[in-house]
């Protein structure tokens, strides 16, 4: 009897050492997985037949209509909504990066600084970023308010990872640097900072994911000039156009994948350049 492995001979044989085989395998599995997701959604939408679960075909139609005529409710294009969200997201992210990384390095380096900062951080950390949204929007306005919600979302994972990174540095490396004549400042930026970068990037990856959730939710409370979160809420609550809502959800997903994908790529490049693979 013929065994399955013999069918088609070596053509069907998967070689884990072959890069092309690995790529094709990964591609086929990814595409199949996404097809399964779309089919499950489609079947669910048809079986349940409820207003707020449109079929993928209807969402596809809505997407092209939005590309062609834009968002007729706000007078904005889909690109305008995406750029509005990206701008707020980038603003919040960069502020968080500028504050969390230096603070994390200092906290990791100085025990006193860590002991002093920890109580404050531990009191603030459990507060969900979205809980700050009404306060920030009222206090800082509809532009800076949502940005600060992103700031909170990105800040804590970035800070924790940076502190963790500093603490993971092998003390022998610091001793060696000092033995070779490096002063405190040189030890800081020639040993501690480079060794911490992979951990900082890990914090960036986690922070980007949380930041996306924050910006979309904050825009649902209030946002000037549109935004994907605003687009989703307006179409859901005001217009009841659910295919448009799903277009918004898919955009959020894609933008999240792209931003975390870029962070992942940068992370890998840095690790590779630093010989830390």
């Amino acid at each position, binding site marked *: 009897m013929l065994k399955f492995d013999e069918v088609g001979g070596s053509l069907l044989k998967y070689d884990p050492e072959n890069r092309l085989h690995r790529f094709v395998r990964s591609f086929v599995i990814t595409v*199949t997985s996404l097809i399964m997701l779309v089919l499950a959604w489609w079947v669910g939408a048809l079986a349940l037949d409820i207003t707020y679960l449109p079929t993928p075909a209807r969402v596809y139609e809505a997407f092209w209509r939005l590309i062609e005529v834009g968002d007729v409710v706000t007078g904005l294009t889909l690109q305008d909504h995406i750029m509005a969200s990206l701008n707020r997201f980038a603003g919040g992210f960069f502020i968080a990066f500028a504050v969390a990384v230096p603070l994390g390095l200092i906290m990791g380096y100085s025990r006193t600084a860590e002991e002093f900062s920890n109580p404050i951080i531990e009191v603030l950390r459990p507060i969900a970023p979205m809980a700050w949204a009404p306060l920030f929007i009222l206090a800082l306005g509809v532009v800076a308010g949502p940005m600060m919600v992103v700031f909170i979302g990105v800040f804590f994972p970035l800070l924790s990872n940076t502190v963790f990174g500093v603490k993971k540095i092998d003390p022998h490396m610091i001793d060696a640097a000092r033995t070779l004549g490096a002063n405190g400042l040189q030890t800081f930026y020639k040993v501690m900072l480079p060794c911490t970068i992979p951990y900082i990037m890990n914090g960036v990856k986690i922070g980007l994911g949380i930041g996306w959730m924050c910006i979309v939710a904050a825009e649902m409370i209030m946002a000037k000039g549109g935004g994907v979160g605003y687009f989703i809420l307006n179409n859901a*609550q*005001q217009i009841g156009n659910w295919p448009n809502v799903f277009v918004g959800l898919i955009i959020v997903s894609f933008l999240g994948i792209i931003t975390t994908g870029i962070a992942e790529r940068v992370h890998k490049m840095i690790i590779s350049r630093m010989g830390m693979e």
Partner: protein
Amino acid sequence: MVNKNVLIVAVVGLLIVASVGFILLAETEEREPKITLLSQVNSEGSAIFVSSDIATGDKANWSDNFGGKVFATPGTASIQHMILADYIASETDFGFAIQPAGALDDNVVYWTQVPPIDMKESMSKGLVDGGIAWEPFNSQIVADVPGVEIYKWTDEIWDAHPCCVLAVNSEFEQKNPETVQKFVAAHVVATKWIMETIQDDTSDNYSYMVNISSIFAFGDKSEANKAIAKDSLGHVTYDYNINQSWKDKLEVVIDTYTRLGLFDRNPEQLGYESSTEFVERLVNTDYIDNASATDVVDEGDGLVKVKVGWLSGDIHQLARLVAMDKNIGEGMGFGDRTIFEAFGIEIEGGAGNPYANGGAVMDAFLADEIDFGYLGAPPAILRTVNALS
């Protein structure tokens, strides 16, 4: 022994084939409108108000100053938003778009969503240059914010335009027609009381109506707020009747939304022959026709509990307030009962009640959170049509 990868491929393949088969063969049933419109609540009673920056020179030309200015609206599904959008499009050369985060273009009139209850603060702080709201908030803003003036009352833009309606969950209606009849009868009695009371502003009933309106809208009955409430009542036309002219105006709402592209699929694309057929399906006048023949229940009889949604501080929906007031019920000879209770109805607010706008009331309907709702006709139509898609 079958290779486990082969098994996975086989199962996945089977699932894909089964799913595609289901998708190709599945037939969805035509949906029924989620709500039925039972009665008018009011018409007109909204206004465009503007800051002193706009209110300069001849009033007829104030709209020339709208360019680059920001107007507050209750939300994109509201009649107020629709009237403002339509007015800007038809009567001015300006575009109409949501307020951007950056610079404003003088060729565009911008809007931003603000709950009417917060519009006074937005105007006071200079966050917006004007707005459109339901009463009593226009009168309140004019009275309390220096320099603000009414540009146009909405009846000057669209005479006797439809505004708030009484709607019922269609499934609830089919299962409980007697309860619906009693609710509508109570609503009609309350509206008639308002229509009579509003004729004589020297009567005790009128003073009482002003008091409850002030408390409902502003939380107190200070002299200043009562004066605003009194002013507001004069700007609203209360009526429960549904006639052909009113139905024709609902068709105008449908045609306007179709033109603005707000429907995912318009009634004709959904299989209705025309807007007329859709309106006939949406509106049921039987309950209004039979309202006068509906008897009150005996005192002590059990009450039927229904869940109702209404808008925050909206004086248009005064009939609901009147029908829930024990003093008015007593004055009408119902004993220690409200008008609703006299007709055997006990009112319970839906979760989240009162709602910020008609879209939120429709959300409550779609979530089966409320049985009856007071809301604007446009959000009722917009959300109902889009829910059929």
